[in-house]
């Protein structure tokens, strides 16, 4: 195509500069076909589809500010005497890491602002990923073909947690040092290999002289490198799968209704990037985060109350704080269950959400692709499971801050801890039941609306004195939107006797699947959509509403 146009010039004059540059690049990179295929790619419009963008942009902000911080940070645990401009630490002995962080905060131009942007962006990055994941979960966007992208996202969240952890441990202040000690304790609690891993990671006994330098290369190179790769893969898959959309008139499983990437979304996304950057910079200009000068340098013999990790590690902190201090001693070995069980639970609880798409597709046995999103109410069991998971997570966050909760609400810390212990088991069950009921109620309301129309609030008095409220029938579009979802039937085990009368063995997994399917899609778990006949019957004119 392009060669054709080149050999038959439209005019004698030179082509405009832009065209020549594009031509030059196309001849070497072949970008024309790539751009043609993707520039006009359609994306649907919904505010919740921008949550992932918040994450992407805060990730970029973190990388940009992080590069600036590396210019001044010394990842060394050599002991130095402080003689910078922060008076209350004058003459104190501290690691070079801590003293260079003080230097960044007080003596480098813009250093404190950049540090705070970096840290606030990290807090928002993780929070954004959490909410983004919940959006994908509750709308069923993780279904085929997007399971792998769901795992990419999950990995990004987990790696983000650990990148955050290694990052806030770098200044070697008293708060983060306590956190590193906490982590070392968790590592030590692993049977058999724990002590070896700890010695290997810290290059000897805690704290040693190595961990800051090691965390540094993990924090600025290893983890962000993997994350960057995953982010790129995540985005490529979004392009490849095309974006999901909510049901609506004209929207099918085979199309995407929305606007083109260029120019609409390029402009929107570009603008949104600056809005995100601006909001985070404003936050960093207004509010202090991790004031390491107030915490002082880390010394293993010192500890402060109110020592919590950043919010994304609060779940792990909560598990440890809520767990009774059980331990088993045998043959001179100690198994510290009080720490090891929380460590295992931490992995299992997070793993649950990673595996969920595979569990659901096994229960439904659905092998088709899904590009239309579910409304959460139309998948009550999934929604209820998700809310139960979030409830468990949130209760453990309360557990992680049990001392702050106790002092600020004038409660006993013991009572808060017991609330968390019981709540971790009871809360998710309650949340499950309540959420499912709410979803069912909303489904009933939808059905009501479809069959009887919208309540107008207009009261009419009939000639014989009866009062009725006038209902307005829904528009065709609204009717479509409310009935677009499909409803599964519970999977049955199938005939157990073949045509020759031979009984086959029913596997345990089949029975389990049938039971789960019944729980997901049985009569108790969904309200049947109104059928066309029902609708005609009721709207045919006779009888009032």
């Amino acid at each position: 195509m392009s060669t054709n146009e080149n050999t038959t010039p439209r005019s004698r004059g030179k082509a405009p500069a832009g065209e020549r540059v594009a031509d030059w690049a196309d001849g070497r990179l072949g970008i024309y076909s790539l751009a043609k295929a993707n520039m006009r790619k359609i994306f649907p419009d919904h505010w919740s589809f921008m949550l992932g963008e918040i994450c992407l942009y805060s990730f970029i902000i973190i990388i940009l500010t992080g590069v600036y911080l590396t210019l001044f940070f010394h990842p060394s645990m050599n002991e130095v005497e402080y003689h910078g401009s922060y008076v209350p630490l004058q003459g104190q002995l501290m690691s070079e890491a801590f003293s260079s962080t003080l230097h960044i905060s007080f003596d480098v131009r813009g250093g404190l602002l950049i540090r705070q942007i970096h840290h606030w962006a990290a807090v928002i990055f993780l929070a954004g990923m959490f909410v983004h994941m919940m959006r994908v979960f509750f709308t069923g966007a993780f279904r085929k073909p997007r399971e792998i992208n769901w795992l990419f996202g999950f990995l990004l969240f987990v790696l983000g947690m650990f990148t955050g952890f290694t990052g806030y441990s770098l200044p070697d202040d008293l708060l983060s040092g306590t956190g590193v000690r906490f982590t070392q304790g968790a590592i030590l609690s692993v049977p058999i290999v724990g002590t070896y891993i700890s010695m290997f990671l810290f290059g000897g006994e805690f704290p040693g002289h190595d961990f800051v330098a090691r965390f540094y290369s993990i924090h600025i190179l290893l983890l962000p490198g993997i994350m960057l790769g995953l982010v790129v893969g995540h985005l490529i898959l979004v392009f490849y799968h095309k974006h999901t959309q909510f049901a609506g008139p004209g929207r099918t499983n085979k199309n995407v209704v929305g606007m083109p990437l260029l120019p609409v979304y390029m402009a929107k996304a570009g603008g949104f990037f600056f809005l995100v950057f601006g909001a985070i910079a404003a936050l960093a200009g207004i509010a202090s985060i991790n004031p390491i000068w107030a915490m002082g340098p880390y010394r293993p013999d010192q500890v402060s109350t109110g020592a919590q990790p950043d919010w994304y590690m609060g779940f792990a902190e909560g598990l440890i704080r809520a767990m009774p201090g059980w331990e088993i001693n045998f043959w001179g070995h100690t198994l510290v269950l009080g720490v090891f069980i929380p460590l295992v639970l931490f992995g299992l609880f997070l793993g649950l959400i990673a595996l969920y798409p595979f569990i659901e597709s096994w229960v439904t046995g659905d092998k088709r692709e899904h590009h239309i999103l579910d409304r959460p109410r139309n998948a009550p069991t999934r929604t209820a499971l998700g809310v139960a998971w979030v409830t468990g997570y949130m209760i453990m966050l309360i557990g992680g801050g049990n001392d702050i909760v106790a002092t600020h609400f004038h409660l006993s810390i013991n009572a808060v801890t017991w609330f968390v212990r019981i709540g971790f088991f009871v809360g998710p069950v309650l949340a499950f039941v309540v959420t499912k009921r709410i979803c069912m109620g909303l489904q009933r309301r939808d059905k009501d609306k479809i069959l009887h129309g919208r309540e107008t609030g207009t009261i009419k008095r009939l000639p014989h004195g009866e009062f009725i409220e006038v209902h307005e029938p829904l528009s065709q579009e609204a009717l479509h939107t409310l009935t677009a979802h499909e409803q599964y039937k519970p999977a049955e085990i199938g005939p157990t006797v073949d045509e020759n009368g031979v009984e086959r063995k029913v596997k345990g997994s089949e029975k389990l699947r049938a039971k789960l399917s019944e729980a997901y899609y049985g009569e108790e778990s969904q309200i049947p959509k109104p059928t066309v006949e029902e609708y005609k019957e009721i709207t045919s004119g006779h009888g009032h509403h």
Partner: protein
Amino acid sequence: MKKLSARRRHPLAALVVLLLALVCTGGLYTLFAPAGKVKADETAQSLAIDEGKKLYAVGCASCHGTGGQGSSDGPSLVGVGAAAVDFQVGTGRMPAATSQGAQVPKKKVVYTQAQIDQLAAYISSLGAGPAVPTKNEYGPEGADIAKGGELFRTNCAQCHNFTGAGGALTKGKFAPSLEGVDPKHIYEAMQTGPQNMPSFPDTTMSEQNKKDIIAYLNAVNGDETESPGGLELGGLGPVSEGLFGWIFGLGGLIAVAVWVAARTAKAKKS
């Protein structure tokens, strides 16, 4: 009225009703909430007793015994010293309410400083104990702030937090915030160890060390302390930072996202 009823199905109607209800409940609560605790016995003050013993007999003896020997309701005060009296009465912790919770909280001081001094004189006459410190002892002159910080982190931060924001202890007890506490009272607390606090007599923590700690607290948590990074968010660390980040950071960005998504190109429908 017609206007109101026409709008009662507006999408924001529920929000408005909710706000109104909140304002009403809050207003009614402030109107009818019980006023602060009953003021100290007028008669006790109007008697104008300039002698600690008489004050003691009225205000303290019912719990601490007529001669300061203590009872089932309060400990013996023999040998606690003037510093303990000055701290407990001077911060309003004493006299305590008849039924306090896990710990006697700081509250409004009911005695004048002159009366407190009289009480202190009476109590110290029962047995020798630490005296009320002088300004020389707790003043900022000649104090080493950095050393005080190190001492604070080693001895105090376990309960009082990095900069004295306070923290939780078991079963509803707590280490109070040290913000805005009179240096004299901090000194006396270290000296006498009130309630759940261990005492740090001069033999374990020298006068100079106490001075250093007070100077450090004044530098990091005093009236004139500047927060270089902006709002301190209570100085409570990651819990308040996380809440702030979620609510104002992510919350604000989601609001922006909703705003951006609502303002879309008008090419959709003709």
